Every structure is written in structure tokens, then in C-alpha cells.
């Protein structure tokens, strides 16, 4: 089977508060940076993938691209991981040769951004919004008390997730928050939605990024080391948090992870670097258990014992994550970017020559998931 690589990867020049950039501008800047990173020109691009709005037609048109292949899969913040998976299939099928995947979001400044509000006749509009849900802080958070009761996770262990990630962010000049924090700081921060304090919730920023995906037989054509797409998976579970099958585990994470690990032919002990989408502090806990790194109920103590922070055996969210690095709203693109940087050897908090990086994406509120297994080398 044809190997597939990520040949170009870049973020926007700046992340954070960018009121001088519209959503579309962020897509364009990320795209141009990724094309340059791959040593290509826009004329080389024959496939386009991104989410709406603005969507692939708008982004392709803005860049002067006439695509032979289009993917507008928009299933939340994990969409870009699904785009990589779909792009790999398209390249193997011969539908496209050089695919551009873009993300841009004016999540903080809301310049040229659409407003999200469920239609009052949709299932979430009828059966959740009337009860005062108001975005992810009121919905993504609901499963955790059940997990805490079933598995004994403590408030301190939850808070420690933010502490561990801040230790990575401290090494990263591009991270939004870099000052060290303690469990006490986290628990003293403002209550947003019990049991979640402010420092257990992700940032809200502006930014973007893009990827160039192509076939592995072209690896030598590009200026940067190729990052091989070794395995991919995707799944969906529920459009409403209230209908999640079991509030103590993510079925979508588990199924997407199983598919990606099986395709790559790896197990958890092969993984050198891990990114788990962290919109909130509990999501890495659910992710570690869904991927099988630890048994059910063990992820909280595992993180609190220092296993995932600098110096630990399982480096997790090494850019600082959504909790400390950046979170535009659809964070998946940034998780992929850090995996690529680590495998290329160009990360701010660079690990010692990692061979395998796994990226777990989340969309919506445990609604969807994509998983990528990326490698420094082709599959052996």
C-alpha cells in the first residue's frame, strides 16, 4: 500500500489575541506557511480539506486553488485528524497528489466568525438547550462527577492535569500561559462549572495552521524530514452529551484509537510521544484510558505521579496543550502540529529522538474522535 506523509506543517505566525485577523485570513496565513514549509507553491496543491465556516470552497478560492478533491468534513475540533485520514485514502486512490488541510479560527476575537447556537427544533435545541447549556463548559464537563464517583478521582488529581501541562508550557515560548502553577492555584481559581475551575478549562484564542499531505515516495523532494502517517482511525458517539453511552469512558476515543493502532501495527509501549486533545482537564484522563495506556480509573493517579510531565516516561501534551498553549475552539490542528514538530526534532520542548507520536482528537463534547499514529520512519 502506498505510504502517505505529512510533507509540510505550520501554524500562523502568531497565536492568541489577533483582532487584526479574520477567520479566513488565519486559514490563508496557515496555508501559505505550510506550503512554504514544504517548499511548494500553491499551484502544486490539487486537494483541499477544511471545516465550515469558511469551508473548503472559500479557502480554495481565496488561495486560487482549483481542487480535484474536496473534503469538508466538519465534526468539531478533531476534523483535521479526519482530514488527514481521508487525504491518505484519496492519495492511495489516486484522486489527488498534494493535499492542503487548513484551520483558522477567530475563537477569541470572533472576527468574521459565525455564531454557534443550536436550532430550537434540533435534538440539542429541544432536549438540552432549554436546561441552560451554554457551550462546552456546561456540557463537556457533565460526565466527570460520575467518573469521580465510580473511580475515586479526586479534585486534586484533576487539578494536577493542568499543573503537569503548565510544566511543558513553561518550556515553550509560544505558549499563552507559562508561569508555573500548583494544585492549590488551580483549586483556588474561579469556579466555572462545578467540579471545573477556570484553570481546568482551556484557553480561548485566535490562530490557525495547515498541513500538506502527499505520498511517501516523494519524501526526498521536501526540505523537512517526512512524517509518516502510519495509522488512522475515526468514530462518532453522540451529538448530545446526555446520550453518551457511559459517562466514565469515551467510546469514540476507544474505537478511533483501536483502528489507528491496528493499522500502524503498534501497541502502547511503542509510543514515544502522545497528544490528547485537552479542552478540559478530564479529557486526557479519558484519553489515556481509552487508548489503553492505563487501566480504567488509573489515569488520574498516573498523571499526578508525574508520568506525563517533563522527565516522565510518557510525554503528554508537550506544547502545553489547550490548557496552556492555545485553543482556538477546534484545537486538533495544533495537536497534530506538535506531533510533527516532535518527530522532526524541531519542538520547543524537544524530546530525545521520538520515533512514534500518537495524536488523539476530540470533536464536540465526546461527540467524535480521530486518532493518528505518526512515525519518523515508514512502517517496517
Amino acid at each position, binding site marked *: 500500500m502506498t505510504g502517505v506523509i505529512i510533507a509540510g506543517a505550520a501554524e500562523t505566525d502568531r497565536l492568541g489575541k489577533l483582532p487584526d485577523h479574520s477567520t479566513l485570513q488565519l486559514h490563508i496565513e496557515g496555508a501559505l506557511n505550510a506550503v512554504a514549509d514544504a517548499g511548494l507553491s500553491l499551484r502544486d496543491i490539487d486537494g483541499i480539506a477544511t471545516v465550515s465556516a469558511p469551508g473548503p470552497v472559500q479557502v480554495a478560492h481565496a488561495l486560487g486553488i482549483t481542487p480535484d478533491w474536496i473534503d469538508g468534513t466538519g465534526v468539531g475540533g478533531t476534523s483535521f485528524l479526519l482530514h488527514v485520514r481521508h487525504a491518505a485514502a484519496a492519495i492511495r486512490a489516486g484522486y489527488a497528489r498534494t493535499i492542503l488541510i487548513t484551520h483558522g479560527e477567530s475563537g477569541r476575537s470572533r472576527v468574521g466568525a459565525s455564531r454557534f447556537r443550536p*436550532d*430550537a*427544533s434540533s*435534538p440539542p*435545541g*429541544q*432536549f*438540552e*438547550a*432549554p*436546561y*441552560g*447549556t*451554554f457551550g462546552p*463548559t*456546561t*456540557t463537556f*464537563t*457533565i*460526565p*466527570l*462527577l*460520575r467518573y469521580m*464517583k465510580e473511580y475515586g478521582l479526586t479534585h486534586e488529581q484533576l487539578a494536577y492535569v493542568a499543573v503537569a501541562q503548565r510544566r511543558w508550557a513553561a518550556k515553550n515560548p509560544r505558549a499563552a500561559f507559562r508561569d508555573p502553577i500548583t494544585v492549590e492555584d488551580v483549586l483556588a481559581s*474561579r*469556579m*466555572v*462549572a*462545578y*467540579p*471545573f475551575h477556570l484553570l481546568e478549562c482551556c484557553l480561548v484564542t485566535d490562530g490557525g495552521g495547515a498541513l500538506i499531505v502527499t505520498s511517501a515516495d516523494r519524501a526526498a523532494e521536501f526540505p523537512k524530514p517526512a512524517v509518516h502517517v502510519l495509522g488512522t482511525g475515526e468514530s462518532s458517539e453522540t451529538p*448530545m*452529551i*446526555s*446520550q453518551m453511552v457511559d*459517562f466514565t469512558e469515551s467510546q469514540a476515543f476507544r474505537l478511533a484509537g483501536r483502528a489507528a493502532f491496528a493499522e500502524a501495527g503498534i501497541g502502547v509501549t511503542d509510543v514515544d510521544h502522545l497528544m490528547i486533545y485537552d479542552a478540559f482537564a478530564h479529557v486526557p484522563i479519558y484519553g489515556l484510558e481509552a487508548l489503553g495506556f492505563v487501566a480504567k480509573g488509573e489515569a488520574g493517579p498516573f498523571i499526578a505521579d508525574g508520568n506525563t510531565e517533563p522527565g516522565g516516561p510518557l510525554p503528554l501534551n508537550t506544547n502545553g496543550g489547550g490548557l496552556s498553549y492555545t485553543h482556538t475552539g477546534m484545537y486538533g490542528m495544533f495537536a497534530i502540529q506538535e506531533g510533527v514538530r516532535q518527530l522532526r526534532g524541531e519542538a520547543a520542548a524537544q524530546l530525545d529522538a521520538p520515533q512514534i507520536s500518537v495524536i488523539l482528537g476530540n470533536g464536540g463534547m465526546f461527540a467524535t474522535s480521530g486518532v493518528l499514529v505518526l512515525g519518523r520512519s515508514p512502517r517496517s
Partner: protein
Amino acid sequence: MVGSVSVAAKPVPVPTPETQPFWDGCAVGELRLQRCGDCGRAYFYPRPVCPSCGSRNVSWFTASGRATLYSYVINHRPAPGFEDDTPYAIAVVQLEEGPRMMTNITGLPATPEALELDMPLRVRFEPRGDVTLPMFGPEEN
């Protein structure tokens, strides 16, 4: 506060053909669910197919209204229209018949001490706009 601020109204659901019997039930004080005539499982939210087995042989019945508290958050950043209720509990209850649904908890303080997981609850109904919403509160002895 002296108010010239226009306060947004709480969201009012707009029924669709497949959900209308549910809302009609709420209006007369009944919590109506659907059950599959083939596999026997009850389910929520309303739709014309059994999510367990794919059967179209489904029918409505009136649930007991008894439930237990499955999980919740106590929200401190109000949705538009909920300013006067804050903090308020957004909960998911486990209905006696099996399905779960989102709700608010009424008749109890919105505190972790008052809201114990697995505590028994019972449905009650509150009018809002053109519809009546199911809410859950403590079992009354």
C-alpha cells in the same frame, strides 16, 4: 439592580413531528417515552426508529417519572435567560425505564452537598412559552 437591561428569554424548544407526542405528554403531566416492539428496549430522545435494533416497530408509553441522579455540573456562567438562577445544576438523570435525559434539578440547593449522585428523583413539569418542560426534583414522601 435597576433594570433597563433587556433580559433574554430562556430557550423554548420547537417540537418537530417526531417529537410532538413527547411535548403533548408533558403538557398533560406525562413523561412519554418510546419502546421498541421487537427488542423491547425503551429509548429517548424521540425518533421513529429503535437505536438498539433498527426496527420501525416502535410505540409511545408513559414512563413512571422516577429517576436517579446520574451526573451534573453546577454552572456559574449563566446561559442567556438563566442569570437569576445562577448557579444552577444542569443534570443528566437515569430514568427508571433505562434511558437518560438532561434536565434541571428543582427543589434542592445547587450545591454538591445537596446533590448526591444516585439520589432518587421524580419528574415535575414547568411551563415555558408554548411548551411544558420536564424537570426533576426530590421524591416527596
